[in-house]
């Protein structure tokens, strides 16, 4: 626990203070390198002492990240990182806890924990690296792989229907939901920073390229040459504009988003204005289902609402119990109920 008050603003730490001596073992060219770099770069700016930061992960390529962050870290077992994070945060609310997971770790084997940690609103940041493939086990389809995907374990194509990670998060009552892209460094660091500063569970899906087993999975819209036309940057309170010249926008037709070009009687005032703080999750959910090629892929904060954290409510009950009953007295408790004395 911190004994000194954490300074507001940046500490006298630099990115190199967050680099460990461990050799980074991801494949050359992996999107994980970029995410790690942004994470190390962000840490000094968070204003949290290094000893109060904890990275917790499960199993998979993404889950190696804690070894490369010079903070406290726990590389646990497959899918279970949110459970360890919950126990730790409930007992020590001074810590900044980040969970690093992937589409297999978080949505397949650990799907149950992921939804429950979000509904409880434990104050942790979950970064889910979505590469739509199992990398560490060498190339099987994942719960986010597109239907029909041919992999080693689906030579005739996967017959599964994929999950939309952001839809899962919204349905699980996550109070902060966002998406970013491994190669969009500025957007990525900005999104992680906002998530890390959110009070409650923050969930970020990061589209991450696996150049060995699923190369180019997102290039159709992530490639720099087409990105501005095929993704839309969400900004709170602003109409949803995209395109090189911001000449296109999203209009809501009932519950169906549609792409329109400005001009010819269509103006910005016709566009869908993004409201990330809207309590009703219906519009967030619509955003979570927008995908290229029907629509540009939304990037940024989809939802950011305030509600009490789980650990604060747990603590509140402890405080209330002490106020009502007084600090627990073991001897009195031992003698609770009917007792008698033998002389």
């Amino acid at each position, binding site marked *: *626990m*911190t004994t000194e008050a954490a300074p507001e603003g940046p500490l006298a730490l630099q990115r190199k203070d967050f680099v*460990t001596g*461990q050799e980074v073992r991801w494949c050359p060219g992996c999107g994980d390198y970029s995410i790690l770099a942004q994470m190390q770069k962000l840490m000094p700016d968070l204003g949290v*002492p*290094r*000893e109060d930061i*904890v990275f*917790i992960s499960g*199993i998979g390529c993404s889950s190696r990240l*804690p*070894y490369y962050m*010079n*903070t*406290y*870290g*726990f*590389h*646990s*077992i497959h899918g*279970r990182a*949110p*459970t*360890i*994070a*919950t*126990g*730790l*945060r*409930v*007992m*020590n609310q*001074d*810590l900044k806890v980040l969970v690093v997971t992937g589409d297999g770790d978080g949505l397949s084997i650990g799907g*149950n*924990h992921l939804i*429950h940690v979000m509904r409880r609103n434990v104050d942790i940041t979950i970064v889910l690296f979505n590469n739509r493939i199992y990398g560490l086990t060498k190339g099987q389809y994942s719960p986010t792989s597109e239907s029909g995907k041919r992999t080693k374990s689906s030579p005739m194509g996967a017959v599964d229907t994929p999950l939309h990670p952001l839809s899962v998060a919204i349905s699980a009552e996550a109070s902060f939901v966002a998406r970013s892209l491994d190669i969009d460094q500025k957007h990525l660091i900005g999104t992680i920073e906002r998530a890390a500063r959110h009070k409650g569970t923050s969930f970020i899906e990061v589209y991450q390229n696996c150049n060995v087993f699923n190369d180019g999975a997102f290039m159709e819209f992530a490639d720099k040459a087409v990105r501005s036309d095929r993704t839309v940057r969400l900004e709170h309170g602003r109409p949803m504009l995209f395109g090189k010249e911001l000449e296109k926008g999203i209009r809501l037709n009932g519950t169906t988003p549609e792409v329109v070009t400005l001009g010819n009687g269509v103006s910005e005032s016709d566009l869908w204005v993004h409201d990330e703080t809207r309590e009703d999750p219906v519009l967030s959910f619509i955003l979570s289902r927008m995908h290229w090629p029907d629509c540009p892929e939304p990037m940024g904060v989809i939802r950011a609402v305030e509600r009490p954290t789980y650990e604060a409510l*747990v603590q509140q009950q*402890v405080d*209330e*119990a*002490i106020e*009502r*009953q*007084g*600090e*627990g007295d*073991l*001897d009195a*408790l*031992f*003698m*609770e*109920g*009917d*007792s*008698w*004395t*033998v*002389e």
Partner: protein
Amino acid sequence: MSTEDGRRRSNAGTDQIEELDRVTIRFAGDSGDGMQLAGLQFTTTSAMFGNDVATVPDFPAEIRAPAGSIPGVSSFQVSFSSHDIHTPGDQPDVLVVMNPAALKAHLGDLPKGGLLIVNTDEFTESNLRKALYAENPLDGDSLDGYRLVKVPVGSMNARALADSGLNAKQIDRSKNSFALGLMFWLYERSLETTIHWFEEKFARNPEVRDANIATLKAGYNFGETAELFPVRYHVAKADLAPGRYRNITGNAATALGFLAASKLADRPLFYGSYPITPASDILHELSRFKNFGVKTFQAEDEIAAIGSAIGASFGGFLGLTGTSGPGLALKSEALGLAVMVELPLVVAMVQRSGPSTGMPTKTDQADLLQVLFGRNGESPVAVVAPATPAECFEYAIEAFRLALTHMTPTVFLSDGYLGTGSEPWRVPRADELPRIEVKFAKDPDTFNPYDRDPETLARPWATPGTPGLEHRLGGLEKADITGNVSYDGDNHEKMTRLRAEKVARIANDIPELEVTGDESGDLLVLGWGSTYGANLSAVLRAREQGLSVSFAHLRYLNPFPLNLGDVIARFDQVLIPELNLGQLAMLVRSRYLVDAASLNKVTGRPFLIAEVEAKIHELVGSKVKV
């Protein structure tokens, strides 16, 4: 005493008192009939009077199995005595049955000549059919060998409460109190404790409170006036060690022990758990202790329960999870993680009949090998096992002492019989309990995550929030000293042996095994867990009969006490009674190369003393010295 006609009943009646050493009563009825409540009240009253008591409940896994059916029968057995007793009794002396199904399910346990008290009102055609009786057993001669007493409990209760203002259904729910009142009269017990309990329990529902008190008294008075019983019975106070006592179930004692451990170690307690029979009461109890700073977490599943507890341990707190057999199976991978990261986690494991869902409310000791070996890789954990319900308190503390001192996951191995059974607990004073020393790493200059204490081999506990000690834990094999990831084969062998040796050295920190009886002889009965009472009682009886039999009880199952091999070697034969098919026997045979005999039982019920006694006679009975 006098009655309305002024005649003193002194003939066959109520003034005749017979002294007994010990009585065992079983209350049996439909699961909605309140048999657990009646049994518990009889227990508390007898304990407060000064008897030694021991109880065992038996109830269906279903909350409300079809009313009147045999699977829906619930029972509670209480044994009370004027001397020290170790079990709730092999067989009841008295069987109280509230309906035909209860009679059908339990009559087989009542010895001939036993007192059988039957609520005749429920012996209707439809109830007889549900209990699979072709004819009413109260009419024929099938019950001739018992001292049958027919009491119309339902209608007597209804008459007593006619003016209570309650409806017929509510009135019927009080009939257990009528039966209880009758038993209180028969065994000369005061109504005071139960009346007080009703006053507290139903303080906000005065009609129900008054009805229960009224019918309790009516049952008592009925005993006095009805001339159904030729004598009343007296069981004198037991000669218990001086001190303050309360009656306690094993699960309640377990929860208090963990709470006490938190105070003794001066670290807050975290309990992560998923509801499971018969361990849920530990969760219920601990969640009441919020004003002690205890935080309980009802997790989404068994894995989250242990994961969260590991998170708490990582943070420097007392991480605790609890479960039963199927839940432990789900927790195994995470328990292996705790072995690898060498954190002081405690798992409270309350066994029930398996495999799979098995018989959730029935007891069993068949998870010993799961606890010891049910993980991938060489994965040693420390294991302690209490012998009696009250002892659960002491061994819950001991589990944390070992976990914290030796930086190892530790399993507290109980079972359904201990967890739900009860006995008087001699209540300690909190300041008499020994403190548990907890050390945290602080110094960045000397810190290495997998450095070890030279004596115990425990690694340092360095918790998030400590400046300069940032390090990474995980399930991958650790390099010696540094704790970095290592795939080096020689390092893996070294670490595997270190983890094993660390747990083995706990043997230096636990008491030696004690022997009850002679230090050597023809036969050693060796037990563990909840078989303690039956084993001890059987050995004491055999010794009275002149047999050369001694008894030893293991409370530490990993590591074993250092002298176990020596103790075994001093006897010609070893008998290991277990509620499984021979799990401790397998360990003892392989470790000490001894041809140990087994007595095994997996009916979901504890051993009877007579069963152990018969086995002792089978092995060494011919050697009786005349």
